[in-house]
């Protein structure tokens, strides 16, 4: 069908077409106007509405011990912030907030009265406090809704007040072991930056980097698209893995605390080092410091004084004088020295005294008896140049390189140019020289490490949040101070100190041999040596034959006794004995007899080393003292009614492994009593509690 149109219809069609064309042109023009002319400005406006930069808070990395146990860890908590200028009734708000956040209403009001755009009301709220504030805010919003449009002024004021304070997430540092290794770790300030200790020293690694993520929001302000996830790698701080072992640190702190309490001392230090690697396993100090509450302590408490404080080493220093003289071949261990019956005059320069008067002593006996006069004579024979050379070799008067802020150099006089003879001589027995406990431990470790001085390691690794190693600190030898032969001879001499007749017999844990040296140093008060204040020291390595630990113990101003062998040696014994057991070096039973018996026995034994190599004596009785049948078992014993420990002892002696179920006393066993031993040497025992 053909439709025929007349001219008028055509005109009308054209008119309508023109009208439509104009209409669409207008729309097109508007599009061009919106898109290309006003477009950029409108786009900016839209972006401002929908896209917002949100701060991405950095998460501080953890500090872990050598077994990856957390010593310091961060988590997010809420802090209460406010815009004081937006709050209508500050007094009323303060009164309402006070019980919720555990603060005085007047204090809150004082904060809210400040003429600032933003204030922190309280930071680091507890979860309960944060929940209470959130609930209060929700109640305010409900009140606003309930009042509706009628009470416009009131509801407006409430709305503004409700929006004027809010909770913000903030990272907070926790030290879950409280005082354990507190001075080593240091602490963070309230803004999460390291302020002391390792927290400060490695802040650039641990802190992470604050970032801003670009988020696209909807009309309600909810995040539609966020770029935060892509920023995680940058915001997460690295983790520090220390050489510290938390168990050995705990042992050191516990023993030190007991010693300090026992002797009513002003404080104390203990350092435990692995001689072969220079790894610091523990650095304890008293009084303790809890970094969770750092604001309660003064600077002396939170500094790691094992590194920052230098003190006189006293007689412990004699081992370094003698080691230097032996290494320089100035003396031999058997060379005799006359110890002047306890009083040695240096002419007009001064007098040196011994605690006990001695006649002729060999070099080894000078160490064993701790003769100042003997050590002074050895020092004089060694000469100032060689003495200075070896002191530098042991690292005295220099930083150890532990990478810890505020490390003390210690004080070593230039003895080559010192005029007074007494000043040169007293260095030989540890007077007129100061060292940090760490320097002393590292020098001691050099003797136990075949004469090689190692750089101390406190931080073993820095790893990122994915566990990838960022930096690794390997054991680094500094220099060979002594020949291995000299080091071995020195260990032998130091071992004699802890044997019968030596000054350090109290330092030996049962079942182990210890090589060490006692020391008692007068403290310097003002410009003179105090006659009532002393430092008691014991430094030693254990086991003496093949040292695995080098330990320094210092007790500051003990009362009742002052000698290192009485005050510090028992603390050394506690630390060494427990630490060695923890590390898997078990006591040898033949060494567990009383010292008198041991000495008598050792005189008959040509080679004590050979005796040490013998296996431990077999267990002849069970733990509870009940006699067991000697020889291997042929049939299953009756285990019913016995506790787990006793059952294990019996079966262990028979070479039978046991599957245990429950706890308490044995109530059931397979195979039954009297039955032949199981072919696979595995039996089953069920236990039930006494009740």
């Amino acid at each position: 069908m053909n439709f025929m149109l007349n001219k008028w219809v055509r005109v009308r069609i054209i008119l309508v077409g023109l009208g439509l064309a104009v209409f669409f042109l207008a729309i097109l023009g508007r599009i061009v106007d919106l898109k290309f002319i006003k477009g950029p400005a409108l786009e900016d406006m839209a972006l401002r509405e929908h896209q917002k930069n949100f701060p991405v808070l950095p998460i501080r990395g953890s500090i872990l011990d050598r077994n990856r146990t957390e010593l310091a860890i961060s988590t997010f908590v809420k802090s209460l912030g406010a815009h004081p200028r937006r709050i209508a009734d500050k007094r009323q708000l303060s009164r309402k907030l006070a019980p919720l956040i555990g603060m005085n209403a007047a204090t809150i009001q004082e904060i809210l009265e400040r003429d600032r755009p933003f204030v922190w009301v309280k930071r680091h709220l507890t979860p309960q406090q944060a929940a209470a504030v959130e609930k209060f805010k929700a109640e305010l919003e409900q009140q606003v809704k309930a009042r509706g449009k009628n009470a416009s002024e009131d509801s407006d004021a409430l709305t503004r007040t409700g929006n004027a304070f809010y909770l913000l997430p903030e990272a907070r540092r926790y030290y879950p072991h409280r005082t354990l290794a507190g001075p080593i770790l240091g602490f963070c300030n309230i803004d999460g930056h390291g302020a002391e200790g390792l927290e400060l020293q490695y802040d650039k690694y641990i802190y992470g980097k604050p970032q801003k993520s670009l988020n696209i929001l909807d009309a309600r302000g909810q995040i539609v698209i966020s770029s935060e996830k892509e920023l995680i790698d940058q915001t997460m701080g690295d983790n520090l893995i220390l050489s510290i072992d938390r168990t050995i640190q705990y042992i050191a702190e516990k023993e030190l605390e007991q010693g300090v309490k026992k002797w009513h001392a002003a404080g104390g230090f203990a350092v435990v080092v692995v001689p072969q690697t220079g790894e610091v396993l523990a650095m304890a100090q008293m009084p303790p410091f809890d970094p969770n509450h750092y604001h309660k302590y003064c600077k002396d408490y939170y500094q790691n004084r094992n590194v920052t404080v230098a003190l006189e080493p006293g007689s412990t220093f004699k081992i370094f004088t003698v080691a230097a003289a032996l290494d320089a071949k100035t003396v031999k261990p058997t060379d005799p020295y006359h110890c002047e019956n306890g009083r040695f005059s240096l002419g007009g320069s001064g007098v040196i005294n011994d605690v006990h008067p001695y006649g002729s002593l060999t070099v080894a006996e000078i160490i064993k008896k701790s003769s100042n006069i003997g050590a002074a004579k050895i020092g004089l024979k060694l000469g100032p140049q060689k003495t200075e050379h070896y002191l530098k070799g042991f690292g005295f008067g220099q930083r150890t390189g532990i990478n810890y802020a505020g490390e003390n150099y210690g004080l070593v006089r230039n003895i080559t140019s010192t005029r007074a003879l007494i000043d040169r001589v007293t260095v030989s027995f540890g007077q007129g020289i100061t060292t940090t406990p760490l320097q002393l431990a590292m020098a001691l470790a050099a003797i136990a490490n075949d004469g090689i001085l190692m750089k101390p390691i406190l931080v073993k690794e820095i790893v990122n949040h994915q566990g990838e190693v960022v930096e690794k600190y390997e054991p680094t030898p500094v220099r060979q101070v002594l020949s291995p032969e000299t080091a071995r001879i020195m260990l032998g001499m130091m071992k004699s100190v802890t044997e019968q007749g030596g000054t350090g017999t109290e330092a030996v844990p049962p079942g182990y041999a210890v090589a060490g040296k006692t020391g008692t140093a007068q403290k310097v008060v003002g410009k003179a040596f105090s006659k009532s204040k002393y430092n008691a020291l014991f430094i030693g390595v254990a086991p003496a034959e093949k040292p695995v630990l080098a330990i320094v113990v210092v007790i500051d101003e003990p009362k009742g006794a002052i000698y290192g062998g009485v005050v510090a040696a028992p603390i050394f014994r506690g630390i060494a004995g427990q630490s060695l057991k923890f590390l898997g070096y078990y006591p040898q039973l033949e060494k567990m007899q009383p010292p008198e018996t041991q000495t008598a026995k050792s005189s008959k034994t040509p080679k004590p080393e050979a005796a040490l190599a013998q296996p431990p004596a077999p267990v002849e009785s069970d733990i509870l003292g009940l006699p067991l049948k000697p020889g291997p078992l042929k049939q299953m014993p009756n285990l019913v009614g016995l506790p787990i420990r006793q059952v294990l002892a019996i079966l262990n002696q028979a070479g039978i492994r046991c599957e245990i179920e429950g706890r308490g006393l044995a109530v059931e066993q397979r195979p039954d009593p009297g039955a032949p031993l199981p072919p696979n040497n595995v039996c089953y025992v069920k236990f039930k509690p006494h009740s």
Partner: protein
Amino acid sequence: MPRNQIRSVALEKVLASDNRRVTPVYAVPQLGKGKMTIFIVLLAGMVTIGCLIAWSHLQFITYNYQISQKYADQKELHNINRKLKVELASLKSLPRLERLATETYNMAPPEPQQVINLK
């Protein structure tokens, strides 16, 4: 007279004068059936594509909401995990364990002869 006829007459009177000559008629271009089908199919296709685009955009936004929500949940779980780590470390602290062992369970360090080294 029917109502619509009156209206058409009135319109004619308004738009065209009485002495106007009827001009020759022109043929209106007509779409064929095939072309019309193609046109309808194209139109339907465009509408479908438009709907698909709108649907995909909606899905995009929905998934983004879900991702944001899940990410917020993940962050919260990470934070809970950190808090639990703090709590676990506090519970496993050695002074506490030692106190529990000695005071609550009356335990004591073993004597050397009581230790059996199993290796």
